[in-house]
């Protein structure tokens, strides 16, 4: 009897620990960004604001990740001496090729996050959702769920806010704000 229990416990412990450790590796594809972009450098050396590149358009829509044209405004030729920049100019700016950026927090097709409304009406600041992103020196790997194809940062990871529906609802409920499915779903 005792022997049995021990065996049982052993099996349980072994499998669960294994599963806990393996889960992230099994579930996510880790993809590297095409260019190692440093928000920190641009913010500190360049003294730039988020909105300089990630702006709201006149119609209130959010421009998202800037196009190469935006980069070319400053980097038509290399500004600094860094190898990274030189390569970027050579590979993308000069041939006017769009880098295939991987968006960490891009909502799936069926969800619509109106940046404008949150910034202008909700008075939200970028950091509140994209905490460290604006100051990061390196672009982390983009984790894409192998099954659902959704970004891990949207679904949320330990120690990262996450931008799942529950997160939206949680915030709206805390503020006692109204919300309905169609407010975000499209």
């Amino acid at each position: 009897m005792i022997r049995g229990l021990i065996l049982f416990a052993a099996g349980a412990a072994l499998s669960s620990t294994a599963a806990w450790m393996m889960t992230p590796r099994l579930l996510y594809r880790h993809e590297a960004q095409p260019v190692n972009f440093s928000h920190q450098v641009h913010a500190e050396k360049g003294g730039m604001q988020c909105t300089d590149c990630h702006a709201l358009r006149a119609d209130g829509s959010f421009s998202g990740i800037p196009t190469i044209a935006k980069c070319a405004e400053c980097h038509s030729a290399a500004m600094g001496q860094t190898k990274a920049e030189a390569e970027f100019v050579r590979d993308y700016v000069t041939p006017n090729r769009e880098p295939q950026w991987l968006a960490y927090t891009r909502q799936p097709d069926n969800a619509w996050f109106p940046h404008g409304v949150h910034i202008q009406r909700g008075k939200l600041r970028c950091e509140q959702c994209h905490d460290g992103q604006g100051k990061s020196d390196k672009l982390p790997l983009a984790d894409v769920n192998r099954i659902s194809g959704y970004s891990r940062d949207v679904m949320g990871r330990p120690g990262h806010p996450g931008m799942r529906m529950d997160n939206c609802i949680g915030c709206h409920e805390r503020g006692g704000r109204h919300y309905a499915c169609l407010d975000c779903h499209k």
Partner: protein
Amino acid sequence: MTSQTGKTKAARYGMVVDLDRCNGCGACMLACAVENNVPPAAPGATDRTGITPLRVYRYENEGRVVFVPIMCQHCEIDTPCVAVCPQQAVELDPATGIVGQIPQRCLGCRYCMAACPYHARYFNWSDPEWPAGMERALNPAVAPRMRGVVEKCNMCHGRWHEARELAAARGESGPVAYTPACVEACPARAITFGDLNDEASLVAQMARQNEAFRWLESIGTGSKVYYRSRREWVRESSRKEVNGRG
């Protein structure tokens, strides 16, 4: 799903369709399909398995003909489809009065279709398919649905989203003003859309006129899509008991 707050004045978006103006050209049906990324007919589809969130019926009665555009009527008195959905994929948004259908939450049990007296709900019997390359011409404001879910008229919520963003950019508040695709498309200007709560609005005034009526009013689901006709027999037929075509 919703927690209503008195912060912003609630809207009750509704429509009045003038049946005397409609000549059944079908522009609204196509505008609806284009706006909401409804796929072309799947192979073997019929008028019973097709997807037409807005469908114009040709109502022929003793030689007299009227064309009746039927879309989701956005009922507001214990809405039949909202009550029955087992997993809250349908809801009546008290802030807009729109009955919203969320295909991503839908299980595809089709109970809501059985519940809808207007047959205004459509099931995706097949995977949606567009001719090669045509996906580039899809409307970015609306996500295509997948096979096995129910869809219906959401009163062009994609346009509502954009209008709301624009309003926010302009610092406006209160219910946003926008126009659904069918309303913009109708060459006969047969459909009037607006906020029924706003007494001054044209739609509210027309809904109050004697010529205005609603289909199946007797069931008492309080639909927010009104119809109007000067023709007595049309108004009568909305009151008369069912005499569906055999």
